C-alpha cells in the first residue's frame, strides 16, 4: 500500500485484466433466465466500494473527507443490503416448484 510506483500500477493492471477474463467466462456461464438476479448481485458487490468509503470515514475528528466518506458508506450500504436482499427475493422465486419432488433446500 505504501509506494504508488509504476510497479504497483502494473500489478493492478495485471489483476484488472485477469479479473476481466474471469468475469467474461463466468458471466457467459450464467443462464439467461437469471440475468435479472445477475444484475442484482453485481450491483451489490460493486458496492464493495464501501471499503474506500470506510477508509475515508475512519480517522477521528470531523473534516470534509470524513463527511464524504460517511456519505459514501451510507450510499454503498443501501446498495449492499438492497442488492443482496432483492437478489435473494428473486432467487427464492426460482425454487423448484411442486412439479418434481427434488426439493433442495
Amino acid at each position, binding site marked *: 500500500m505504501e509506494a504508488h510506483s509504476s510497479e504497483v*500500477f502494473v500489478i493492478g493492471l495485471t489483476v484488472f485484466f485477469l479479473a476481466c477474463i474471469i468475469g467474461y467466462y463466468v458471466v*457467459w456461464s*450464467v443462464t439467461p433466465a437469471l*440475468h*435479472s438476479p*445477475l444484475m442484482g448481485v*453485481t450491483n451489490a458487490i*460493486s458496492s464493495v466500494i464501501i471499503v*474506500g468509503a470506510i477508509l475515508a470515514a475512519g480517522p477521528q475528528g470531523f473534516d470534509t473527507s470524513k463527511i464524504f466518506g460517511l456519505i459514501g458508506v451510507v450510499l454503498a450500504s443501501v446498495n449492499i443490503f438492497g442488492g443482496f436482499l432483492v437478489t435473494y427475493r428473486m432467487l427464492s422465486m426460482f425454487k423448484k416448484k411442486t412439479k418434481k419432488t427434488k426439493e433442495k433446500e
Partner: protein
Amino acid sequence: MVAILYLISALLFIFALRGLSHPESSRMGNIFGVIGMIIAVFTTLMFKSVLSYYEIGAAILIGGAIGSFIALRIEMTALPQLVAAFHSLVGLAAVFVAAAAFYDPVAFSIGKVGSIKTASLVEMSIGTFIGAITFSGSVLAFGKLQGTISGKPIVFKFQHLINALIFILIIFLIVLFVINQSPTIFWTIVIISILLGFLVVIPIGGADMPVVVSMLNSYSGWAACGIGFTLSNNLLIITGALVGASGAILSYIMSKGMNRSIINVVLGGFGGEQDTSASKDNSDKIVKQGNAEDAAYIMKNADSVIIVPGYGMAVAQAQHALREMGDILKKEGIEVRYAIHPVAGRMPGHMNVLLAEANVPYEEVLELDEINHDFPMTEVSFVIGANDVTNPAAKTDESSPIFGMPILDVEKSQSVLFVKRSMATGYSGVDNELFYRDNTTMLFGDAKKMCEDIVKSLSA
C-alpha cells in the same frame, strides 16, 4: 493478512456469479456474495487508521435500513427502475470516495494535500468521471422506467457533436486537474460528467432500456475499478472488473437480441411515434377480433400452447392470471410452455423473474433458441403484451427498422392469439402483418383482465 482476506472476499464474489449458472446453485451463490462482503467490510474496519466505529456503524445501519426497506417492499414489476436507482448510488458513492481521497490523501497513502501522486490523480479523476456519468445516467434511466419522464427518445440537433465536445472538455479538465490539483476543477469535472450522463441517456427510448440498464451496470463496475486503482486495492479492481465485464456482456446480448450494434443503441433516437405511414397502408385490411371465450375455446382444443410474454404483461401485472390460465390448460392435458425473447421486458431476464414470481416452473420457460424450432409443431401461440419480437417483417422486409432482429416464429404455429390493448404499433413503430393473418385472432383489452376472463371461460 489484509491482502489475503481481500483475496478470499474477491474469490467469494466470483463464486457468487458462478452460482448463477443454475437456479439451484444460485441461492448458495448469493450467500457467498454476502459472506464476501462481510469479510471485506470487517477487514477494512480492522485497519489501524479506522477508529470511528460508531459513525461508520451508524452510517451502515442507516444505509442498510433504507436498502432493506426498499428491497423488501418493491414490486417485482418495478425491478428495472430499482436496479437503475441502485446503479446511481454506486456511481455517487464512487464520486464521494474519490472526493474523500482528494481531500485527505494521507488516509489512503497516496500523498499529501496539494502534492498527490500523479498516477493517483489520473485514476481518481477517471473514477470520478465514470461514477458521475453512472449516477446521472441511472437517475435519468430510473425516471424513464418509472414513467416520471417520458420514455420517448429525445433527440436534438448536433447531439452527438455536443457530447463529443463535452467529452473532450472533460479530458482537458482532467489534465488540468492533474497539473494543479485544484478543488474547483475537481468539482467542475463532477458537474460536467453529470451533465454528460444525462445527455448520453436522453436520446435512448424506453424499449432500449435493457441495454441502457446493462450498460450502466457495466459503468458502475468500471467506476469501482477506477477507485480500486486510486487506492491500489485489488479487491476493488477485481470486483469492478467482474461487474464491468458482466454489464458489458449483458449489453452485448441485449443489442444482439435486437440485431443492433451497441453503438447504434447508444446513439439512440430509435423508435418513437413518427411512423404512421405503415399503419395507414393496412387500414383497409381486416383484423379478426375475438373475445375471451373464443380464446378459451381455441386453446382448450389444442394439444400444445406456447405463451409469449412481453412488456405489456409486466405493465398489466398479468403474470399471476396468466399462470392460472396455464395451470388449467395443463390440467386439461395440454402442453404449455413459455417462450422468452432476449429483449422482452425492460431489463435482462425481466420476464423470467415475473413468471417465477407467479410460480411458473422454470423448466417450462424457454429461451428463443431453445424453443423456436417447436413453433411449427405447436397449435396455439398465445402472445401477451409482445409485438415486435414476433414480427415476421424482421425476416422478410429489408426496409423495416427491425430487419434482421431474431424473432419468435409464432407465425409458424397453427393459430396465433394476440392479447393487445389496441392496434397500436410496438415501440419500433412498425406494423405487424401477423395481425391481419387468417389464423390470427386479436384479443383486445387489458392483459390481466383478458387472462382472468379466459380462466373463467375455461373453468365454466
